[in-house]
Structures are given as structure tokens and as C-alpha cells.
């Protein structure tokens, strides 16, 4: 059944409603409750999640200045719903912008575990991607993906604010695809 018909449930004739509800019942019988609920609620979750991306307000290094510039009036990332929250319990994106020293590695992993599911991880800047200028350093983790799974890489040294916003718009597509796959109930 076409997903675009679902929102019409608020304004449809009696015949249309019967067709629509029949289709839902057929969905339920053929694919099961779980998938039908996913199909029904997925677009709503995706709409809500991708328009209110709340990254963790965790400025590690110099890319945090670009993060600050991105939320300032010139770039104004808040129009995409990016509001930085200070507690990992209130966020759904871990934005790592800077070198990860060996000393902060356990805390980073812990912050990642504290973020409620579903969650996404963005590696911003060369240091978080691969170690960057600190390649082969004695005190730097060689890339964020050695600790946590990464969804979006934003290259740059540092990444420009518009590159960062572009990365988050890619992440919006990823969030949408995630809910379209319908694995929300599995989490």
C-alpha cells in the first residue's frame, strides 16, 4: 500500500476509509503487526527525528569553533533543528569534533553508551576521521571508528560550518532511511 495514503485518514470519504482500513488489515495479516506498526509510525518518527537533531554539546578541539560558528547567525544550523544538549540522555547524535586522546577514550565510549537508541555518530574533522596531524601519535586514537560505529564523516581541517551543515543534511537522509527500513521496534 502506498504510504502517502496514510495521512489522508483524517479527511476521507466513507468508501475511501473502508479501502484504507481494509489495506491496513491486509497488511497486518500478511506481514505481521510489527512491520505494519513500523510502516505506519516510521514516517512520523523519521519526520520528528530528522527535524530535531540534538547533538551532544561536546567540543573536543578546534572543530568545536566551527560547530559554534555553525550555530551562530551567519550559518544558523538551528533552522535544521540542531540544538546542542549538554546531557547525553537528551541527545541522539554524538558529534565528535577533534582529536581523541587515549585518556578520553573510555569517557567517549561511555558517553556513546549513555545516548538512548536510536543514535548516530558523526566524525568531524581529520582528527576524528583518521588521527589527522596526529597520525601514529603515542597519545591519540587513530580515528573515531576504532571505538564507536560512525555514520557520517565530515572531512576538513577544520571542517567549514557549511560542510558541517551539509554533513548533517546527509545524516537527515540516513535517519529517514533508517526509519523507512522499519527496524524501530527492534530497538
Amino acid at each position, binding site marked *: 500500500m502506498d504510504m502517502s495514503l496514510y495521512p489522508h485518514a483524517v479527511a476521507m470519504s466513507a468508501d475511501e476509509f473502508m479501502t484504507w482500513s481494509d489495506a491496513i488489515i491486509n497488511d497486518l495479516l500478511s506481514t505481521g503487526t510489527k512491520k505494519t506498526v513500523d510502516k505506519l509510525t516510521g514516517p512520523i518518527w523519521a519526520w520528528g527525528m530528522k527535524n530535531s537533531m540534538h547533538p551532544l554539546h561536546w567540543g573536543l578541539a578546534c572543530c568545536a569553533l566551527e560547530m559554534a560558528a555553525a550555530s551562530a547567525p551567519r550559518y544558523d544550523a538551528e533552522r535544521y533543528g540542531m540544538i546542542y544538549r549538554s546531557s547525553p540522555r537528551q541527545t541522539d547524535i554524538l558529534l565528535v569534533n577533534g582529536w581523541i*586522546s*587515549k*585518556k578520553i577514550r573510555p569517557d567517549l565510549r561511555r558517553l556513546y553508551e549513555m545516548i538512548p537508541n536510536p543514535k548516530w555518530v558523526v566524525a568531524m574533522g581529520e582528527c576524528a576521521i583518521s588521527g589527522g596531524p596526529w597520525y*601514529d*601519535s*603515542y*597519545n591519540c586514537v587513530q580515528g573515531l571508528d576504532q571505538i564507536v560505529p560512525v555514520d557520517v564523516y565530515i572531512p576538513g581541517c577544520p571542517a567549514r560550518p557549511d560542510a558541517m551543515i551539509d554533513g548533517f543534511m546527509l545524516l537527515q537522509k540516513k535517519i529517514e532511511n533508517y526509519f523507512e527500513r522499519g527496524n524501530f521496534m527492534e530497538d
Partner: protein
Amino acid sequence: MAEVYQSPSIDEATSALTSQFPDVKIVSTAERRIKMTCPREISHDVCQFIHDNLTFEHCSVVTGVDYVDHMTVVYLLSNYYNGLMIDMDVDVPVDDLHIASVSDIWGGANWHERETWELFGIVFDNHPRLERLLTPKNYEFFPFRKSYKMRSQE
């Protein structure tokens, strides 16, 4: 008791130092700079004299250099009144990496000495808290030594 200068000139500072400590060697001088060396045994006394009598109230840097056959602790001390800066080198033998801490003279030297210890392994005696500062506590190597190799250098 030697004379106390608040704002010593280069000549006053060098003559006061060499008359008080004959073992101190003035290597060179430049505008607002004195480069000197001093033996390890009297380094704390020399620092106390520089602080008390020459009024060098600021310890900019304490760091180390690994020359493989010996190590050197470098102190950069400065005077607030005329901007004079003393570059004091103290040689430390590799088999006995101990030197007196100056964190009781300049409180700011505390973290510099901790960092020098964690990076070079130079032990500062009588330091109040000689622990690793920036590297994890379980490190057992000293990364700024020449003998430490990166993975790509092995």
C-alpha cells in the same frame, strides 16, 4: 646576604650569579636574554637565588631535551619588571635522572615538571605530586625519549 635587584640589567645579573655561584657558566647573552648552564647539585639554590635576589618571579617553561648520551632540563625564567629572560640548562646523566624540583619556588613549575616527567622520565625530587598529567596512568614508557619509536619507525 647578596644584594637584591628588582630590575637587574644583564651585567648586574651575570655578575651577581657568577660571584655567588662560581660553578655557573654564562654561555652567551643577547638583548634581554641570558643563556647559562649550571651543575645539577646546585640547581635549586641557583633558582632560589634567581627568584629571591634577581626577582625573576615567573617560570615560563620547564622542559627537557634528550641528547641520548645525557639529558638536559631547560628552565626559562623571566622578570616582570624589565622582561629579562634567563635560559638555564642543567645537564642530567642518563643513568641517574634526578633533579631537585623548583615547584616550591615557582608554583607554576608544578605542571611543567609533571609533564617533563611523563614525557622524558626525568624525576623531580621533592615534587608534591609527580604523577602522569596528560597521558593515561597505565603508560609505562616515556614518549619524548629518542629511544621511543612510533609504530611506523619500528
